[in-house]
C-alpha cells in the first residue's frame, strides 16, 4: 500500500500544488516568524534548564512546522488540548509563554485559564487529553454552535493508550467536531513508532470509521492547509479527522534524556536536511518575498524575546508555603483547613525562634 504524504513545500523550498489544498490565505512570512521565535524560546529554555533555572524542559526542536502550521489553522473560537510539548501551539494561541516556563521551573502546575486563549492546560499523563477534547467537542454539539471545533494534540506513543482508542471511538460514534492531531516525532522517549503500531498511524482511524491523513510534519504550509480543512469539516458536521504529522524530534525527549543511546547521528543529520524553517527561508528568498533584513529583524526580535524571558524566569518567586493548600477544593474542607492551620502554626514557631535568637 502506498502512503500519500501531503506536501506543499519541499525540503528544498519548492512550492508543490495539491488540488485539494489550495493555499490562498497563508501568511507564510508570519509562519516563518512564529517558527523562528518558538525555536529561540525552546533553545533558551534548554539553556535555562542546563543552568539549573528550570527543573525540566521538553524540547520541540524539529516540530515547529507541525505546531505552528496546525495552530495557525485554528480560528480564535476553536479549542486546543495540548500534551506537554506544544509550546509552539501555546505561542500561536497567544498564551504568555512565561506561563509554560513557570510550569517547568516548578512554581505552578500550569495555572493558566484555558478559556482565555482557548488553550487547555498541559496534560502529562499520555493521551488523557484526547478524551477531554472529545467531551468538549460534545459540549459544542449540545450548545448548537456551528463555528467552533476542537483540536487534540498527542504523539505517536499515545496511540497505544486505551484512552486514545476510546476517544477515537467516542468522537466517531457521536460525530464530534474534533481534529486529532498526532505529531509522529518518531520517538516515544526511545521507542520507535513500529513498537506502537503495525500500520501507519494515520490509518488507525479507518477502523473507527473516520478519515486519516498523513502530512509532511516539517512542512508548515501543508500542516496549515490540512488542519484548516479538517477543522472546517468538523465545524460543518462531518465529524472527526485524524492527522498524522510525520516529523522528527531533533532534540531529546526531555532535558533528562540522552538520545544518543537510541538513535544514530546519521539519522539526525538526514532530518536536518528537512528542517522546517530552512525550507521556508529558501522559498521566501528565492521568490523575492523576503530579503536579509527580514531575517535579521526576526533574529533581533528573537534575541530580545529570549532575553526578556530569561529575566522574567529568574525573577519568578517561589510560591509562599501556605499556597500549598489553595485551590484543592471550590468549597471548604475541614480536614484540609485543619492541616493548613497546623502547618501555619508550625512555621510561625520558626519565626518566633528567629526573633528570640
Amino acid at each position: 500500500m502506498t502512503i500519500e504524504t501531503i506536501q506543499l513545500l519541499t525540503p528544498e523550498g519548492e512550492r508543490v500544488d495539491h488540488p485539494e489544498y489550495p493555499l490562498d490565505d497563508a501568511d507564510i512570512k508570519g509562519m516563518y516568524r512564529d517558527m523562528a521565535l518558538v525555536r529561540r524560546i525552546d533553545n533558551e529554555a534548554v539553556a535555562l534548564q542546563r543552568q539549573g533555572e528550570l527543573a525540566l524542559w521538553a524540547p520541540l526542536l524539529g516540530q515547529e512546522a507541525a505546531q505552528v502550521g496546525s495552530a495557525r489553522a485554528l480560528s480564535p473560537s476553536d479549542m486546543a488540548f495540548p500534551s506537554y510539548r506544544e509550546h509552539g501551539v501555546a505561542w500561536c494561541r497567544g498564551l504568555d509563554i512565561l506561563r509554560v516556563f513557570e510550569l517547568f521551573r516548578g512554581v505552578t502546575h500550569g495555572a493558566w485559564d484555558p478559556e482565555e486563549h482557548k488553550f487547555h492546560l498541559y496534560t502529562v499523563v499520555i493521551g488523557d487529553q484526547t478524551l477531554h477534547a472529545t467531551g468538549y467537542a460534545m459540549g459544542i454539539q449540545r450548545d448548537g454552535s456551528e463555528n467552533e471545533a476542537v483540536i487534540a494534540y498527542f504523539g505517536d506513543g499515545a496511540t497505544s493508550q486505551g484512552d486514545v482508542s476510546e476517544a477515537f471511538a467516542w468522537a466517531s460514534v457521536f460525530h464530534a467536531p474534533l481534529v486529532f492531531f498526532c505529531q509522529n516525532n518518531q520517538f516515544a522517549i526511545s521507542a520507535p513508532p513500529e513498537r506502537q503500531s503495525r500500520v501507519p498511524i494515520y490509518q488507525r482511524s479507518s477502523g473507527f470509521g473516520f478519515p486519516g491523513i498523513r502530512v509532511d510534519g516539517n512542512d508548515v504550509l501543508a500542516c496549515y492547509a490540512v488542519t484548516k480543512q479538517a477543522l472546517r469539516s468538523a465545524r460543518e458536521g462531518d465529524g472527526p479527522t485524524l492527522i498524522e504529522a510525520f516529523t522528527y524530534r531533533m532534540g531529546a525527549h526531555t532535558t533528562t534524556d540522552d538520545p544518543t543511546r537510541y538513535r544514530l547521528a546519521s539519522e539526525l543529520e538526514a532530518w536536518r536536511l528537512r528542517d522546517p524553517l530552512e525550507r521556508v527561508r529558501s522559498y521566501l528568498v528565492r521568490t523575492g518575498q523576503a530579503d536579509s533584513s527580514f531575517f535579521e529583524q526576526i533574529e533581533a526580535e528573537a534575541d530580545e524575546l529570549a532575553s526578556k524571558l530569561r529575566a522574567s524566569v529568574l525573577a519568578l518567586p517561589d510560591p509562599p508555603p501556605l499556597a500549598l493548600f489553595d485551590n484543592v477544593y471550590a468549597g471548604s474542607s475541614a480536614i484540609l483547613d485543619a492541616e493548613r492551620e497546623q502547618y501555619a502554626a508550625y512555621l510561625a514557631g520558626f519565626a518566633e525562634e528567629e526573633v528570640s535568637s
Partner: protein
Amino acid sequence: MSRITLSRAINEGLRRALESDQKVMIMGEDVGRLGGVFRVTDGLQKDFGEHRVVDTPLAESGIVGTAIGLALRGYRPVCEIQFDGFVYPATDQIVSQLAKMRYRSGGKVALPVVIRIPFGGGIGAVEHHSESPEVFFAHTAGLRVVACADPADAFAMIQLAIASDDPVIFFEPKRRYWDKAEVDTAAPLADSLPLDKARVVRPGSDVTLLSYGPLVRTCIEAAMAGDNDGRSIEVIDLRSLSPLDMATVAESVSRTGRCVVAHEAPVYAGLGAEIAARVTEACFYQLESPVLRVGGFAIPYPVARSEDHYLPDIDRILDAVDRTFSY
C-alpha cells in the same frame, strides 16, 4: 410525602436537578433506554432527551474523560459507573485529571462532575459486583466522597452533589436500593443537611457506632438489639467520607467514651483506620477503650455463598461493641 425506594429517591433527585439546571446531564452505560441496570435513571431519557441523558459506549475511562471535557465546556455531568468493580478503568481519569484539575489550574477551572457508583455486597452477585472501593478515592485530594444510606437523605444528597462545584464520588448502597421510606420530594434543598456533615441517626450514651452506606441500617438494627442488652448505642451516619466531619464524631465520642467503626471494605488501611487515629487524637482523655473496627477481611471479595461471613452483620457489630466494654 410519598413512600418510595432509595433507587426511586435518587431518580427523583436527578429529575429535579435536570429540571432546575439545563447544564445537568446524565451519562453512562445503559442509563438511557434501559434506565440503568438498577433503574435509577428510569424514564429520564424519555423526558429529557438523548442529548441530556446519554447512553455511552462501554468504556469507563471514556465516560469520565469525556465528562471532564463536558464540564470544561460548562456542563454538569452525572456519570454512572455500573458497578463498583468496574470503576478501575476510570481510575486514571478520576485520580490524575478530575481530582487535580482545579489545583493544576490555580483555581481557574472547576469540574462539577458527579460519579455515581452502586457499591457494596449482600446481593449474591458474581465477582466485581460487590466491592467497596471508597478508600481509594478518599485518599485522593481534590475529590469529595460521599455515601448515602436512606431514601430521604439520598434524594437531598444527590442534588447537593450535583450542585457542588467540586467533583463528587457518590456511593449508593446497592443492597438498599429497594428499601422504602417517606420522602418529601417537594422539600427545598436549602433545608437539607450540608453534604460534608455527618448526622446522628440514633442517639445513645454508652458507645458511638460509626458507619456509612449499606451498614447504617445494620448499625441501627444492632443498636436496637443492644437496647435489650442494656447498651445505649449512638449511631452516626458519616455521609461524607472525604472530608470527614470529625467535629460531629468527636462530640459524640467525647460523651460516650467508646467508639466502633463499621464498614464493608477491608479493615486493613480502610476508612476505619483513619477515623480511629483521629478519634484517638481528639478524644484521648475521654476514651475508655481503644477504637475498634469491624469490616471486611484482608481478602478479595469472596464468593456469594460465603459473603455472609465476610460482611459485618448485627452480631459481629455487637461483638465489637461488647469488646469496647472489656478494657
